[in-house]
């Protein structure tokens, strides 16, 4: 059954070909292939997870070439959890994209290639193989960002392409330095041979610096984040949800593996500058990212800068270098993926209702899409770190670990970031719930919803998924009559049932994950025990 770990990568790649091969025959091939791939991926990830949970960490030699020469895939508590995360996010985005678009075969192909790349990052045990998967991830992302089909999206994609390629190249360069000095690319093998070369070897140190900076570009730490807000803001909503949940996550995960599986805490102890610099970079990232998020009026940009801050927090957790803080970083890695994906889907869904995606556009949106708004608000507060949601569990462990490790600065930064996160989300939630819409987005003759309790009640009951007429924009939907309230017809100004389901699922997931945070800790524990023995 251990082949499942290889199939995690293989299945999406193979199925990515399907839309290209059969797309001309049937328009929905892409969606179906993506759905199939997602389900298969979920099944495979469950198998891997079950194996890990029952027998512990296992490895898989690709093509039966034994490491250190062959490529090794590794599954442990962390990678199994993240593989599951990939499956879930893929399925959710596939479901969401069917209505929200871009519902094209090319999109689904790209999405599946991205899935394969990210899955590969999570399971590989080989440093060069990791580069390959990072590049697959990057290339697929550049393409997906460009599916926004706007000039801005093209420019953002180009910017991401250039900056991201430089990051990946730096990483590759670093791997090259390590290979020259040690003669191996296998992570476990490197961990054994690097001490033989010596931690103060310039080759090793340069390799470390190149790899960390390269991955920091990919993880979008300030000031290497410049590609990220544009890419997030100008992509289609489904793409944004996907890449915000997984792409930077993959880079941060790679950083975690490099720091602990390759360079090990012994290197950190021998080279204090390495982690000090990372802590400072991450802390600055948290504060500046949060401040920039507060400054934004565009909600997608706000969430993008929020990611800069949150990844700063995650990396800070990794860089504190004790088991508690790293556990917190990993929990926040998983939790952030779920919350941020849900938030981006929520923004995309609510933007249709609100008629725009700036903070002010969201005024009074809670009246028109109560369920989605409630889920959005729950996710927002989860990301702030309100118990019992998963955001709290992550931040709590990071703060606790920082205090244990004597990194008071990190603890303070984490608390400050909580306040700033509250600042930028409170602004949105306040407008959603406590402001009336400045004007009816439609400006139609039906009058404001508050004057029509009957239609209001209908809205409340179906969460605005049905086109009940009040929210219909007469310019776009003049043909839509109030009779098609069964939700079957696409309605630009209402939240689709899929979007609603995704946002609610994310909200529920964030809370449930928070409630079971101790189980998550126990899943990560054996992995970290090896690193911090």
């Amino acid at each position, binding site marked *: 059954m251990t082949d499942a770990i290889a199939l995690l990568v293989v299945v999406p790649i193979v199925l990515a070909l399907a839309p290209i091969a059969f797309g001309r025959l049937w328009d929905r091939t892409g969606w179906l292939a993506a759905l199939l791939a997602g389900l298969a991926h979920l099944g495979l990830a469950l198998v891997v997870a079950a194996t890990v949970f029952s027998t512990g960490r296992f490895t898989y030699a690709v093509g039966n070439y034994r490491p250190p020469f062959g490529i090794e895939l590794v599954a442990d508590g962390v990678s199994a959890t993240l593989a599951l995360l990939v499956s879930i996010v893929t399925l959710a985005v596939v479901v969401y994209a069917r209505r929200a678009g871009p519902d094209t075969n090319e999109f689904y192909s790209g999405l599946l290639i991205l899935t394969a790349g990210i899955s590969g990052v999570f399971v590989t045990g080989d440093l060069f193989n990791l580069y390959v998967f990072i590049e697959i991830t990057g290339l697929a992302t550049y393409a997906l960002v460009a599916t926004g089909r706007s000039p801005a999206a093209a420019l953002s994609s180009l910017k991401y392409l250039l900056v991201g390629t430089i990051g990946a190249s*730096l990483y590759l360069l670093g791997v090259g330095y390590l290979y020259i000095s040690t003669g191996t690319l296998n992570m476990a093998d490197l961990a054994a041979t690097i001490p033989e070369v010596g931690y103060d070897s310039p080759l090793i140190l340069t390799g470390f610096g190149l790899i960390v900076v390269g991955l920091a570009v990919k993880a979008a730490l300030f*000031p290497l984040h*410049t*590609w990220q807000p544009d890419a997030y803001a100008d992509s289609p909503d489904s793409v944004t949800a996907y890449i915000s949940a997984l792409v930077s996550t993959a880079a941060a995960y790679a950083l975690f593996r490099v720091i602990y599986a390759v360079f090990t805490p012994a290197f950190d102890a021998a080279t204090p500058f390495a982690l000090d610099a990372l802590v400072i970079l991450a802390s600055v990232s948290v504060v500046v990212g949060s401040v920039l998020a507060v*400054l934004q009026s565009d909600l997608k940009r706000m969430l993008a800068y929020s990611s800069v801050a949150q990844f700063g927090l995650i990396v800070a957790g990794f860089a504190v270098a004790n088991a508690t803080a790293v556990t917190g970083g990993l929990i926040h890695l998983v939790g952030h993926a779920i919350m941020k994906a849900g938030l981006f889907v929520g923004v995309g869904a609510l933007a249709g209702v609100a008629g725009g995606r700036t903070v002010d556009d969201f005024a009074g949106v809670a009246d028109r899409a109560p369920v989605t708004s409630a889920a959005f608000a729950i996710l927002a507060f989860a990301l702030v770190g309100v118990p019992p949601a998963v955001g709290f569990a992550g931040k709590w462990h990071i703060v606790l670990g920082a205090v244990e490790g004597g990194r008071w600065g990190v603890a303070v930064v984490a608390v400050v970031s909580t306040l700033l996160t509250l600042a930028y989300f409170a*602004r949105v939630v306040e407008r959603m719930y406590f402001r009336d819409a400045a004007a009816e987005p439609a400006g139609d003759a039906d009058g404001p919803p508050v004057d029509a309790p009957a239609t209001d009640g209908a809205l409340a009951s179906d969460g605005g998924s049905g086109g009940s007429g009040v929210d219909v924009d007469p310019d776009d939907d003049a043909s839509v009559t109030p009779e098609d309230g069964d939700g079957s017809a696409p309605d630009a100004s209402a939240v689709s049932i899929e979007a609603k389901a995704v946002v609610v699922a994310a909200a529920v997931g964030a809370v449930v994950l928070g409630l079971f945070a101790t189980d998550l800790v126990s899943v990560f524990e054996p992995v970290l025990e090896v690193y911090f023995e």
Partner: protein
Amino acid sequence: MSLSLAASAIASATVLASEPSVSIPTADVPTAIPPAFVVLAVALVLPVLSRKLGHALGVLATGGVAVWALLAPAGTYLPVTFLGFDAVLFHVDAFSKLMGVIFGFIGAAAVLYSYSSEARNRQTAFALGYVGTSIGAVFAGDWLTMVFFWELMAVTSTLLVWDYGGEAVRAGFRYAIYHGLGGSLLMAAVVWHYTSVGSFLFSASDGIVAGVPAVLAAVGIGVNVGFVGLHTWLPDTYPRPHVAASVFLSVYTTKTGVYGLARAFPDGNLAIAYMGSAMALVGVVYALLQDDMRRLLSYHIQSQVGYMVAGVGVGTALATAGAFAHVFNHILYKALLFMTAGVVIARTSENRLKYLGGLGRTLPVTALAFTVAALSISGFPGFNGFVSKGMITAAAHKEHLDGIFYILLAAGVGTFMSFIKFGYYAFLKESKGSWNVRRSVTGQRVAMLSVAALCVALGLYPDALFALLPGSTADAHPFTLSHLGEGFLLAALGVAGFAALKKPLSKVGPGVDVDRVIEPLTFYGMRGLVRGVTELFAAVDRMAVGAANAAIDAAGDPYGTIRGPLGSLVGSDDDRLRDGSLRAGIATSVLLVVAVLAATLLGLL
């Protein structure tokens, strides 16, 4: 057990027990309740009693305290726990016994005088509160209790002044401010003392701890005794209230101060001795210039207290004994002087000497009492002031403190002169107008004559007082030829001086006291301070309001608020900043990556 032995044993180990020819009987006295509380209880019930009954109770209570203090064996004390500290509510030794006797006796006389001077119950209640707290202060066996009663004494005496209304209210305010400051300084000294000694008890240390606490205590007590420069409240306050209130005021505050000074500096202090002699001289010079009777007497309080302070400062056994003898005697004759002045004022409604005259015939008893008191305060042989003043000057002489000695003698001449002036203008001089006044009433006469009798008795037979004194009277020989000659010489100089200076003195005004400098300084200083504080507050307020407004603006429009500064920082116009982003171009992004990489590698290698 003979009191004298106990007294000397407790008072000072260095002093040999004196053997006065009189020994005071002792008896078992109730010790469950501190004597101060009895007086305070009477003060509390007095306003609701009839005038007669209330004042009778007041006389009984204060007189009872005098008898109690006289009979209480030395060493009687009542330890309690006060505010969580060990405290001694009363402690009878030679010092407190003397103070208790005289405070009680003069309290009784003053209450009697109040009754006859038509003082209202409320005023006498305040006065008894003042007496009670003073008695509490002098019987206190530890600093905490003493400071507690000391502060209460300031409060009750202020109330006593305020009770009269009118001009007294303003003077009372000044009085309260001075005593508030003085009390606070003393309290600071006591707290500091406690931190270094670990106990408030007098028995725990020999006086107050040297250094800062000693200075604080000296200045704090100095307000009460009227150190030169700190004394202006005294002549300002004491002439203002009711005549009977003045009698009380002239007795307790300053003398409690002298007692406190003796507790704080049992071994004396030369600076304090010089301060005392300065007080004696300055006080008498100003007294000589006064026209208002009670103001003149008030400056004499400063002058006479100066003798006592000098005695405490010199610090030898004889000087200490002299200081307390002078406390005792001074209380008698100064209360008597205020009583006579009070009778004159009450009968003539005139405060100022130059409008008086010829009262010797209309008020013969008062004139007699005044004569006794004046001769006593001036130190004429045969009267009590002669004895105690002589003890202090002799002690100073014996210590070869010639400066102090001669200053005190000069002050003695001034005292003669000013009382000759008082007597001449009030009683002897031919009156321009004719006084058609009622004579003093019986109560006043009883009070005045009994005090006057005591002045003469103690002047002729000082051994009766010596038995009560702390310190040692072994070296006190009041009636040697040289002393007597000294007394007569001073009197003669006084007469001659007054005769020579009578004309110029009547032309000179009341003199410019330090308050003419202190008060404007304080006023303008305080005004500057208040204005400075107000302006500062206003500035802070403006800043706070500005910050609050800015915060509200920022909360309402965070992007707009920060974009401005950021725009100027980046140096670009607002167009290039789109929607709050600091959008870095591709080149900038690459540059940033390179910069971070370079910094990292530099750091690592």
